[in-house]
């Protein structure tokens, strides 16, 4: 398969945008400008981008507590995202949701979720809607290795298989659920083998190499659009930071090896290397992309900071739709 250069460069830019957004969000969190909690996606950029590059804007995804990457990859606006993290009225959720509840229905991003495994049934419903609409649309459900032990994983994959729904279940296996290693909580080595229980294909893929992610997802999306049913994709990836940012920025409780292994697998550096080999990337272009992204995130932070806070009684709005 040959991919258009600008598409490859766009993928690279999105990965850098995710990395930069979360790096800056973490800074703003520790500077006290972002309340609540932030779960950084740093190190896993290739999964969100490799997957979402296969999607139409009207395809739908559900996300997790670690949702910034999915949101950016699906095409959301970093300004409205940052404003939400800052708790401002200009944010995607008017400051009602925050980091764990960002959504942009306009681009088919049906929401981050603070409950592990809760996105699987919702994505299954989005896939049902796509099937009933009959426009060859698909749904993608992102979830973690830890989530694959929740009951909703089982019931959702079974239901999706029974109805032959156009859905791709994307397990981001970063090897950890907070401080519990997947090797403890998971009774199997690969989540992908669990596809067997639902008569759907399960594929294990390196989640560091974005083109491999893209390729594997492409086939799964083709199957889904062709009415051939769900696929379970497992991407082995690496979480660089602590499970969540905490005030005072305490040390990541995971063992040294785990903490070190992250940066040894850098999807962005890896992709830059490949693009350079292919003659698509030059030091100056690389420098330019990073600079442009940095500026756009800086702009997003300024937008957020200069946006108004909600009024206290705004809390009473939006309980029910008109």
């Amino acid at each position, binding site marked *: 398969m040959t991919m258009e250069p600008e598409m490859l460069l766009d993928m690279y830019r999105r990965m850098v945008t995710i990395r930069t957004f979360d790096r800056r969000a973490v800074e703003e969190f520790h500077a006290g400008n972002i309340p609540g909690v932030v779960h950084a996606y740093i190190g896993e950029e290739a999964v969100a981008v490799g997957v979402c590059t296969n999607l139409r804007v009207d395809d*739908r995804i*559900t996300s997790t507590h670690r949702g910034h990457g999915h949101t950016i990859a699906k095409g959301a606006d970093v300004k409205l995202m940052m404003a939400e993290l800052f708790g401002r009225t200009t*944010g*995607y*959720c*008017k*400051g*009602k*949701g925050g980091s764990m*509840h960002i*959504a*942009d*229905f306009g681009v088919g991003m*049906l*929401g981050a*979720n*603070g*409950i592990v495994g*809760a996105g*699987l*049934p*919702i*994505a*299954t*419903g*989005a*896939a*049902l*809607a*796509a099937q*009933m*609409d009959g426009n060859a649309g698909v*749904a993608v459900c992102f979830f973690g290795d830890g989530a694959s032990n929740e*009951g*909703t994983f*089982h*019931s*959702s994959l*079974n*239901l999706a298989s*029974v*109805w032959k729904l156009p859905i791709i279940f994307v397990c981001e296996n970063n090897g950890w659920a907070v401080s519990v290693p997947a090797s403890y909580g998971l009774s199997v080595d690969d989540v992908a083998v669990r596809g067997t229980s639902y008569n759907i294909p399960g594929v294990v893929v390196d989640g560091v190499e974005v083109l491999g992610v893209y390729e594997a997802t492409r086939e799964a999306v083709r199957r889904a659009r062709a009415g051939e049913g769900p696929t379970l994709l497992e991407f082995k990836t690496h979480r660089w930071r602590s499970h969540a940012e905490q005030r005072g920025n305490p040390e990541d409780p995971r063992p040294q090896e785990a903490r070190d292994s992250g940066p040894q697998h850098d999807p962005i550096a890896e992709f830059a290397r490949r693009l350079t080999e292919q003659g698509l990337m030059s030091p100056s272009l690389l420098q330019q992309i990073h600079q442009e992204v940095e500026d756009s995130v800086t702009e997003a932070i300024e937008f957020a900071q200069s946006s108004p806070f909600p009024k206290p009684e705004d809390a009473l*709005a*939006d*309980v*029910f*739709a*008109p």
Partner: protein
Amino acid sequence: MPEITYSQAVMQAFTQEMRRDEKVFHICGGLGPLAGLIPEFGESRVRVCPISEDAYVGASIGAAGSGFRPIVSPGMMTFAFTAMDQIVNQMAKIHYMFGGQSAFPIVFRASTGGGRSAAAQHSQSPHPMFMNLAGLKLIMPSTPYDAKGLMISAIRDNNPVVIFEDQILAASQETSEVPEGDYTIPIGVADVKRQGTDVTVVAISKMVQQALAAADELSSQGISVEVVDPRTLVPMDKGAIRSSVQKTGRVVIVDEACITCSAAAEVSAMITEDPTTFQALKSPPRRVCAPDVPIPYSPIMEQFCIPDKNNVIQAIREVLA
């Protein structure tokens, strides 16, 4: 006007709304009467599911957020506690958390209530749990007429609406007048099921029948009972209930739920915290509820737990004493 059963009234609402709006469809744990919809609407709009309430209740949320109007029927509410996270953390909060970006038009309907010797798990009245849960509307119709009109309103509402159909009412062969055409009853409006002057009885769902029976019996003894049916528990028609109590000065609240934190507790608190109504009270508000026990199997014990006409009469005598 034709007379039909409670269940027939609900089915009429479904048929008419499914004709009116092709986005309306069913997700259910078992077909039951819904099977009657398949010939006209096909299996793609009446979908039976494997036994996995968390998956299909959650799927109704995803479908609603993707432009459809699902009606999800797990059967008995007790089955759907396995889907409680999807109800509590997703369905009830998703519209608000996302700042109102998208509407989630969902009808979640299930049967509740006891009276059939089905034992603790299958005889519950957990509606108060849902009243405390902000983000859901909650309806408990007591008659075929209310069931159809409120179901149509629920289907057209752009929010998750929970409808609990009492399992005795849903299985009842009793019929009453229901207009054939399409009509709606606004969500949040109580109905005075019987006018009276001496005491107000606020009764919920199946308890309305017991309250009316008590009112009949007492009227022959010169006691005039007003029976108010909230019909909708969220939002509740506080005005209607309070003004009835302001008129009579006395109130008995009949609710099949276990008494602690029951809907009756909310009605009582809502009545007494209003200064005008509080001033008008001539005697303490009285709750008639199930005791705080899981509902037992053996009929004698079960009947002891579920409020009936005699409990209502006794309570009325107490507030009049």
